[in-house]
Each structure stands twice: as structure tokens, then as C-alpha cells.
């Protein structure tokens, strides 16, 4: 197997241009799917026989919770690649993923609380699923805080990578917490071995939201990665060319 593609992706100007080109192609389908998914969840999907209209919070809660897990996994893997192979682009991706992941982890927690109050009778319980998702939020904050406390970007990337790698153990714990322990939180109803447990009119808007928010994540990630690449490659000739439109000798 040739590793040429790996080295090409590792080239800052190549990835920068690729990211610029990909953003619109990800953004438009993401926008259509999210609008369609949320509309479907609010209007088309029928009310739940037990929870009536309160379950519609699902269409915000589950996709953002999924995004928080995906963002953390991608951040940790990219940070590890950046640490092991000294690949600037991978570290840039990790740094770009953190604020997106942190904000949507917060959204998943808050929408979970807004769902918990009417259904469980409490905003918060010290329940495994809830606690480990809160820990995930703290790992994101720790990564962001640690990186911002170190002025030198490449040192910040290395220190952040160690923390991100340590935190990856939490991702499967969050996912399996509802099956390993007796949790107040329900077990998965889409990603389960027997297949989804809801009718198509509920499921299709949910799948649209999942796919839409995934594409949205990569669109915002690539946009932010461009900024992070510029921070790591400020003095490079290609940056000069990009920003001033002229080469170094001109």
C-alpha cells in the first residue's frame, strides 16, 4: 500500500485548499438535512404513546450527543497522529474539533436536562450516563484550557494530545453506560442489534438530523482547521502567496 496520500494530506497548503473546497459541498446538504430533520421531528413525526410531544426533544438531543462522541473520537485520533508523526495538519484538526465538540456536548447535556424534568421529574440525577457525559464535557474543556495555557503552538499540541488520548477511555464508557449499569437513561433505540425500534415517520427525520449534523460538523471542522493551519504555518511561503497574492521574491 502506498502512503503517498497520507503525506499529501499532511501538507498544510494541500489540506488548506482541500478544506476550502469541501466546505460548501458539506454545508448545503447539511443545511437541507438539518432543516428537514427538525421540521420532520416537530411536524411530521407522530406523538409518542407514552411521552406525547415531549419526546420531540430527541431530534435535538440524540444528534448532538452523537456529535459529541464523534467529535471527541476524531479529536483524540487526530491529536495522536499529530503527536506520533509530528503532523501539523492532524494537530490542527484536533484543535479545530475541540470547541465544536465542547459546545455540542453542552447542548446534549442541557437538552437532556430539559427532557429529564418533565419525564423523570428532575433536571439532573447522578446517573452513569449523565455523569460520564459530563466528564466528556470536562475533557473537552481540559483540552481547550491546557492548549490555551501554553503559548507555543507545537508544545500546546503535544500536551493537549496526551490529555485527549487519556480521555478516549471515556467514549465507550458513555456509550455502554446504559447497558452496563441500571440507568435512568433509556437504552439505544436506533443503534442496536435488533434494528431501530420506531416507525418510519419518527425514524426518517431522526436519521436526517444525524446525517445532517455529521456533515455540519465536518463543514465547521474544515473551516476551523483552515484557521488552525494558518496559526501553525504563518511564516510559510504559501501563506504569503495566499494572503498577499505574490511570491516571496516579488
Amino acid at each position, binding site marked *: 500500500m502506498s502512503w503517498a496520500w497520507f503525506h499529501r494530506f499532511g501538507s498544510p497548503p494541500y489540506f488548506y485548499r482541500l478544506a476550502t473546497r469541501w466546505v460548501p459541498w458539506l454545508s448545503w446538504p447539511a443545511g437541507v438535512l*438539518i432543516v428537514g430533520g*427538525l421540521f420532520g421531528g*416537530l*411536524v411530521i413525526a407522530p*406523538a409518542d404513546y407514552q411521552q*406525547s*410531544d*415531549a419526546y*420531540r*426533544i430527541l431530534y*435535538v*438531543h440524540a444528534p*448532538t450527543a452523537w456529535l459529541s462522541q464523534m467529535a471527541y473520537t476524531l479529536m483524540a485520533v487526530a491529536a495522536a497522529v499529530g503527536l506520533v508523526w509530528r503532523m501539523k495538519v492532524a494537530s490542527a484538526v484536533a484543535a479545530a474539533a475541540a*470547541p*465544536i465538540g465542547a*459546545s*455540542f456536548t*453542552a*447542548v446534549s447535556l*442541557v*437538552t437532556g436536562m*430539559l*427532557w429529564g*424534568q*418533565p419525564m423523570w421529574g428532575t433536571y439532573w440525577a447522578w446517573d452513569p450516563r449523565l455523569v460520564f457525559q459530563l466528564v466528556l464535557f470536562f475533557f473537552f474543556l481540559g483540552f481547550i484550557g491546557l492548549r490555551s495555557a501554553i503559548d507555543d503552538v507545537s508544545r500546546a499540541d503535544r500536551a493537549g494530545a496526551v490529555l485527549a488520548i487519556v480521555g478516549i477511555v471515556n467514549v465507550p464508557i458513555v456509550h455502554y453506560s446504559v447497558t452496563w449499569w441500571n440507568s435512568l437513561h433509556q437504552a439505544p433505540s436506533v443503534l442496536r442489534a435488533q434494528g431501530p425500534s420506531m416507525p418510519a415517520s419518527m425514524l426518517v427525520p431522526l436519521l436526517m438530523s444525524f446525517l445532517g449534523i455529521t456533515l*455540519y460538523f465536518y463543514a*465547521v471542522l474544515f*473551516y*476551523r482547521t*483552515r*484557521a*488552525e493551519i*494558518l*496559526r501553525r504555518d*504563518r*511564516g510559510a511561503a504559501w*501563506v*504569503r502567496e495566499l*494572503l*498577499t497574492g505574490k511570491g516571496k521574491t516579488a
Partner: protein
Amino acid sequence: MSEFFAMSGYALYVWSSYAIGIGALLLNIYWARASLRQAEAQARRRLASGDAA
């Protein structure tokens, strides 16, 4: 229509969840744009100081 907005009495929980979710989607777009603008400005400043030297 008012029945739809009432969400069988769960309006506060349902609508604030959607508002928070949509708010986060828009905020992240704004943050990403601000981040790129800031990085470009920093890189320009660095290029300008490099040219002067």
C-alpha cells in the same frame, strides 16, 4: 396551530431545546468565521513585520 405550539403542555421544554440546538449550530458557524478572520489577520501582521525587517 396553537395546539402545535403548546406541544401538549411541554412547550417550554420542547421549544427551548430546539432554540438551544439551533443557537449552537449558528454560534459555531459564527465562531468558525471569527477564528479564520483572526488567524488571517495574525498571519498578515506577521508577514508585514517580516517584510519590514
